[in-house]
């Protein structure tokens, strides 16, 4: 399966539904740190350039806060696209992620609950 079908299959997103309104980028809290902006994710997928998307800084800057998914008027769900791009990378690198019992040591008290949740969401698979 080529990369484009794989990313579509994982994310369940149909990139053609995007009408380029930019609301996802407007709502993205880490827009400025990203090289490929949220409203561009769909274009990279449509142009068969999943490689660039997977290797972009955006893949790791995305906080999985899902604001873009919440507000997209066309149900495109760009957050899931970058999430799928991350999965492709992780699957390439194989299993060298954190194991469950290593996590408590890394936590500190004032880490916001939401950050923890979106981290789990990001690395769960």
């Amino acid at each position, binding site marked *: 399966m080529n990369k484009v079908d794989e990313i579509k299959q994982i994310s369940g997103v149909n990139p053609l539904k995007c009408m380029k309104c930019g609301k996802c980028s407007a709502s*993205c809290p880490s827009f400025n740190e990203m090289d490929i902006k949220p*409203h561009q994710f769909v274009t990279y997928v449509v142009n068969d350039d999943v490689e660039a998307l997977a290797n972009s800084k955006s893949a790791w800057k995305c906080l999985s806060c899902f604001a873009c998914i919440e*507000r997209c008027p*066309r149900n495109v769900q760009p957050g899931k696209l970058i999430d799928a791009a991350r999965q492709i990378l992780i699957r390439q690198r194989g299993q060298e992620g954190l194991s469950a019992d290593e996590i408590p040591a890394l936590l500190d008290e004032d880490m916001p609950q939401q950050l923890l949740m979106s981290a789990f969401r990001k690395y769960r698979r």
Partner: protein
Amino acid sequence: MRRIGVFVCHCGSNIAATVDVKKVVEMALLEQGVVHAEDYPYMCSEAGQSRIAEAIREKQLEGIVVCSCSPRMHEATFRKCAERNGLNPYLVEIANIREHCSWIHKDMQEATEKAVILMRAAVAKVHLNAPLLAGESAVTKRALVIGGGIAGIQTALDIADAGYHVDIVEKEPSIGGRMSQLDKTFPTLDCSACILTPKMVEAASHENITIHTWSEVEKVSGFVGNFTVDIRKKARYVNMDKCTGCGICQEKCPSKKPLNEFNRGLNNRSAIYTPFAQAIPNVPVIDASACIKLNTGKCGICEKFCQAGAIDYKQQDEIITEQYGAIVVATGFDTIKLDKYGEYAYNESKDVITSLELERIMNAAGPTKGHLERLSDGKAPKEIVFIQCVGSRCSDDRGKPYCSKICCMYTAKHAMLIRDKYPDTNVTVFYIDVRTPGKNFDEFYRRAVEDYGVNYVKGQVGKVAPQPDGSLLVHGVDLLENKQILKKADMVVLATAIEPNPDVRKIATMLTASIDTNNFLTEAHPKLRPVESPTAGVFLSGVCQGPKDIPETVAQAGAAAVKVIGLLAKDKLKTNPCTAKADELRCNGCSQCANVCPYGAISYETKQVNDHGIREERRIAVVNSALCQGCGACTVTCPSGAMDLQGFSNRQIIAEVDAICR
């Protein structure tokens, strides 16, 4: 056995591309009774119809089957063609091998096979067609217009000018509708009231127009040419003949709490009120829920101060029943509710307003007497942000899937007027695309940008965050610069999606007019019959049929009026001959059919019959073909098949079923 002619249309390539028309002709000739079969590129053209005419004469055809597009397109054409050539129009059947076959199947062999089956079904049916004669029914020379906005007024004026009497039913205390709430209108910036009020006065003074305001349609029965409508005239508690419209009662009325719907709830009004100064009729109504006298029996100040003695607390709702030949729906629109759009903080901050509310704020008769000021602290806004497509073009369930068509133009208008009146105020418009499809529309938009310096930014707004200091932080994006924008604004205006008046669905049910999931009334044909409803005698005028601006509304209002005039000009209307008929020898007289007839078209009489030698008096069902609309409900409740429907008889449908399943 009837002599049948089968004509297969290529429809250019629409049919011929995926249906082997020659094969259909070949198979047609094998069918019983088919004495003539041919194909032709355009059967509906003059040349095509002349081929039919020729075949009728040469082969003495007694039945025609045309395999072509949907009967809803050209059944009438081919029936008229047959009639011109001496063949009863109801001996023509259409096999729909375009919309139901060639357009939706790719494989030639499969599509041809299906076309042949559909042809066979039509031939089987036409063998059993009876020559029917269209009956006639009288036309009440009077029209009803539901809705008193610009659409309703324009339609009524045009019909009345043609000499027919028109009743306008408007649910608000005054006609004028949405347009009366606007300040200026694009693209010429004339003041909305200045161009609307003359029309309202003309309508009020026209001898052929009766206006029922503060009234609603309660019940509709009958059919084209013979509608019976019950109109509920709600109690005004003011005697319309005596009232001089002096307005003292409104000033003196102590109950000031109710929100002023005309000003979109931005300020209050008294319990006894007229919506706006130029109201027609200029007679106030008493809001029963807010009136102290009606609720507690105390007060009665308005009665004291009224020199004309027009106040009448005892007034009751009144139901009047009228006969009409045609009904025009002109129920207009409203903006959608924004409570599902939390990201724009419409409910949190008073400075986030809809465009319609901005119209009232900029209007001299509005809540702020025309001064552009923030509703929170009354200060003049220095930074205004317009957000386009709020709730429009949304395929999620929060908003509407369609483009509301008028927002780009009225936002350009607002921006231009603000920049013109308050040059030191900055205006930013966040847009997805600016849609200006109309005469002088794009030029108007470019003037806003080039002459008045309105700042257009391509990109939607993600969030509007009210700040502690009372300002609004707008999280936008500039897709062309690929930059996120955080703009501090004093006022945010949302170009909100529009939807048809919510109670149009109730009216559509009463008129049995079809309506789509967005509550827009469905037109008979999107391109060829945009101002008529599929329900004969019901016409559409204005936004109730789809989003449109004032120029289009007035154009459509005129078109609807012409259709009504065309209908009322006829003394007699051809009635649908496909009505039910009872076979007196089989009828049990059990009145099951009368119980299901929606039009009360079935009555009973005791008749002397000779049933194969048995002479006796029997109770027989009789169908009044003027009332019967041919739905067929009675034919199924009749166990013995005595009640049958002409044009769609039991044996015809059984023949079609047999031909399909052969």
